[in-house]
C-alpha cells in the first residue's frame, strides 16, 4: 500500500517536472540561445493557462465561457495568445539592452495578475476557473495519471527535439553569433532585432503551452495557484544550474531543482506550525542564495553549452 502511494506520488512529481522542463526549455531559447532576460515567465505561463481554461471549460453563470472546445484547440490558443502578448513587448524593448526587457516582463506578469484577480467575467476572479476537462480524465485514477504523464513526456520530447534541431541548424548558429557578438552579427547583415523577437516569441509560445498543460492537469486554476515571483525564479535557477544553452541541462536542472524544492517542502511541513511558516520563507531564501552560488562558482551549469568555443588567448591567431 505504502509502495503504491509512493509510485503514485512519483507519477505526480513526474508530470510537474515535465511541465517545469518545458518552461526551462522555453527559457533556454530566450536566455541560453539568445541572451534575453525574461523576468515574467509566470505571466506567460498564466496567460497560456487561462486561455486554454476559458476555451475548454463548461459554462458558468457570470463568466464568459462554455465554449467547450476540444483540448487541442485550447493548447493551440494558449500558445498563440502567449505569442501575441510577447510581440508588442518584444517590439518595444528588444531595441535596447536586455535590462529593459527584464523590467517590462516583470510588468507583464504583474498586469496579468491584476487582470486575473479583478476581471470576474473573464477569469472568475478569486474563485478561479474549475471543471476544466482533462485528457484521459475518464479513466481510473492511476491510468489517468499515467496517461497524462505520457502526454507531458511526449510534449517535452517534441519541444526538446525541435529546439535541438533549431540549435544545430544555421538558425541556431546565427542566434549564438548574435548573442555572443551583436555588432559583428549585425555587420554580417543579420537582422538582430527581428531574430531576437523571433526567439522571444518562440519561447513565450512554449511557456503558454506549459501553462495549458498545467491547467488541464490540475483541472482548476485560481490566482493563488502560482506565486509569480517564486515560479519565475525557480525556472531561472533550473536553467542556470542545469546549464544555459544546453537543452539536456535545462531538463536536468528542472529535475534537480524540483526534487530539492518539493522534498524540502515535505520536510518543512512536518515541523510544528510556529516554525513551519518561517521555514517556508527560509526555503525561498535558500533558492535565492543558490542562484548566487551557481553564478559565482559554476556559471556554466552542470552541463555546459556544447557549441561554445573556448576563447582564444590574447595574442594568438586563431588557425
Amino acid at each position, binding site marked *: 500500500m505504502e509502495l503504491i502511494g509512493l509510485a503514485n506520488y512519483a507519477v505526480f512529481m513526474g508530470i510537474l517536472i515535465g511541465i517545469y522542463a518545458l518552461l526551462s526549455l522555453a527559457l533556454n531559447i530566450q536566455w541560453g540561445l539568445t541572451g534575453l532576460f525574461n523576468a515574467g515567465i509566470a505571466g506567460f505561463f498564466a496567460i497560456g493557462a487561462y486561455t486554454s481554461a476559458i476555451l475548454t471549460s463548461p459554462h458558468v453563470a457570470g463568466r464568459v465561457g462554455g465554449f467547450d472546445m476540444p483540448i487541442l484547440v485550447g493548447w493551440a490558443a494558449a500558445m498563440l495568445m502567449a505569442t501575441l502578448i510577447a510581440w508588442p513587448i518584444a517590439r518595444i524593448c528588444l531595441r535596447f539592452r536586455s535590462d*529593459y526587457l527584464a523590467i517590462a516582463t516583470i510588468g507583464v506578469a504583474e498586469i496579468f495578475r491584476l487582470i486575473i484577480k479583478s476581471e470576474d467575467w473573464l477569469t472568475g476572479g478569486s474563485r478561479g476557473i474549475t471543471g476544466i476537462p482533462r485528457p484521459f480524465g475518464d479513466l481510473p485514477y492511476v491510468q489517468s495519471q499515467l496517461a497524462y504523464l505520457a502526454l507531458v513526456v511526449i510534449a517535452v520530447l517534441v519541444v526538446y527535439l525541435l529546439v535541438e534541431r533549431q540549435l544545430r541548424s544555421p538558425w541556431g548558429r546565427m542566434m549564438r553569433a548574435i548573442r555572443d557578438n551583436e555588432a559583428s552579427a549585425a555587420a554580417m547583415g543579420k537582422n538582430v532585432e527581428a531574430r531576437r523577437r523571433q526567439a522571444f516569441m518562440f519561447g513565450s509560445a512554449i511557456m503558454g503551452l506549459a501553462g495549458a498543460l498545467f491547467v488541464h492537469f490540475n483541472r482548476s486554476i485560481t490566482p493563488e495557484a502560482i506565486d509569480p515571483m517564486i515560479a519565475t525564479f525557480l525556472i531561472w535557477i533550473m536553467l542556470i544550474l542545469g546549464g544555459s544553452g544546453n537543452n539536456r541541462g535545462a531538463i536536468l536542472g528542472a529535475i534537480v531543482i524540483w526534487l530539492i524544492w518539493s522534498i524540502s517542502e515535505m520536510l518543512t511541513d512536518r515541523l510544528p506550525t510556529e516554525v513551519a511558516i518561517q521555514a517556508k520563507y527560509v526555503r525561498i531564501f535558500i533558492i535565492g542564495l543558490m542562484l548566487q552560488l551557481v553564478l559565482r562558482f559554476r556559471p556554466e551549469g552542470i552541463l555546459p553549452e556544447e557549441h561554445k568555443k573556448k576563447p582564444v588567448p590574447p595574442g594568438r591567431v586563431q588557425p
Partner: protein
Amino acid sequence: MTVLNFINFYIVPGLVLGSIYAVGAIGITMVFGIMRFAHLAHGDMATMGAFFALAAIGLFGVSPWMALPIAMIMAAVLAVGIDRVFYDYLRERPKILTVMASLGLALMLRSAVQVIWGVDPVTYVRGIVRPDSYFGILLRPRELYTLLSLIVIVVALTLFLKTSKWGKAMRAMSDNPDLALLSGVDNRMVTILTWSIVGALCAAAGFMLGINTELNSMMGWHLLLPMFAAAILGGVGRVEGAVLGGFIVGLVEELSVLVLPGQYKAATAFVILLLILLVRPRGLLNGKVL
C-alpha cells in the same frame, strides 16, 4: 467638483506618492547611470529599509522621523555589503548577469523580511491623524514631512554631486567611465559611495511609503515598476529627471482612478514605461540608453 476638492483628493495624494517614487527613482537612476545595470532588488531593499526603521523605533523608542536617519545608515551599510558579496565579482562579466543576481537578491531580501518580521502588515504609529488646513488645502503632518524630506534629499544630493570632489567623480563615472578611470577616479571609492547613497535612498523611499500607508513584505516589490517608469521617464542618469518622473508617475496613478477602475492604478506605471520606451527612450531630460 470644486478646485479645492480636486487638489485635496487627487493632487495632494499624487504629490505624496510622487515623492516616494522620486526618492526610489533617484536610486535606480544612479545605479543605472554609474553601475550600469537595472537593479531589480531596489524595491525589496526599500522594504528592508522600512523595516529597519521599525526595528529602530522598537529598539531605541524614538519617534518614526528620528528613526529614518538610523534606517538610512543601516540600509547604506547593507547595500555596500550586498555589492561586495553579490555584485562585485560579476563586474567583468556581461552586465545582464548582475541584473540576474539582483533578481535573486530581491527574493532573498524579501524572504529575510518575511522570516524576521512576518507577513502581517504593521504600521509605525497607531491612530488616525486629522489633516490640518492650509488655506483650504488639507495636509497631514506626515504628508508635509514627506514632501519636505524629498526637498532636503534632492538639495543635499545635488549639492554633493555638483560641488564635492567625490560627487564630481561620480558624475564623471556616469558620463564616461573609461575617461573617468583614465583621469584617475578611484573606482572602488565611487562604487562604495554610490551604493551607500543608493541604500540610504532605498530606506527613505520605503520609510515614506510605510509611514503614509503600512508596512508589509511586498510593499517594495510593488514600488519597483513605478520607480523604473519614473527613472526612465525622466532620463536614466538624471537626478532631476527621476524627481520629475516620480511626480508624473505619482500624479498619473492618482488621476487614473477618474477614468480606470481603482485596481488598475498599478498598471498605469507600466503603460507609462512602455510609452516612453516607444516614443522617447532617452527620457524627458535626455538621459542615457543602455
